[in-house]
């Protein structure tokens, strides 16, 4: 699946998007896989309360299932308007 990062999450991880091959069942499982990869991921995901997630471009919870999902995005709380 495609994993996208925005704002300071993108800066900490160092890329705006990447293709990830995963069997993760939920967003939380995917986060755990990414954190285990490298320190930059571990740092970016260290406080989930400061992060939001979108699954296939819709806001979701960290326990959202990933079966059939094409795109997951992680970002800080939005500041539009």
């Amino acid at each position, binding site marked *: 699946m495609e994993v996208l990062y925005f704002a300071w999450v993108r800066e900490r991880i160092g890329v705006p998007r990447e293709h990830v091959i995963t069997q993760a069942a939920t967003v939380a499982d995917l986060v755990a896989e990414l954190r285990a990869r490298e320190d930059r991921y571990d740092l970016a995901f260290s406080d989930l309360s400061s992060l939001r997630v979108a699954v296939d471009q819709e806001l979701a919870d960290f326990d959202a299932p990933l079966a059939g999902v094409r795109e997951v995005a992680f970002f800080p709380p*939005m500041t*539009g*308007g």
Partner: protein
Amino acid sequence: MRISVQEEAFDLGAVATEFASGHKDMGAIVTFTGIVRDLPDDPLQAMEIEHYPGMTEAALRGMAEQAVERFSLGDALVIHRYGRLVPGEMIMMVATAARHRKDAFEAAEFLMDYLKSRAPFWKREITATGSEWVESKDEDEDALTRW
């Protein structure tokens, strides 16, 4: 309904005039415009706005559709810019058309409250001393509870 996520500036007068035309059964048009505000202590050189192409348009459209339904609007418009803006520039606008002013005003507030914390935009303030991502405010999240 018009939704636009764009880098270029918009002409508030022209957009408002066009929006207000052609609604013979709508007695009230409300527009709100957001401006890049300078910082009092550390002058702002620029504000950079990042967004999530695809999700942004869908989120704005969803909010506008909800507003139309909830406030019986005849029409709704949302324009939001991204990229690098300087103080005084217009960031975004909403416009609502309703039969009476109460619905038009409330729908504009509804749209603004949702835009603040449910549209995937992120702002970064750039000053002479550095740059910082704008943090979301609890009051913006709290504002949604009234709807």
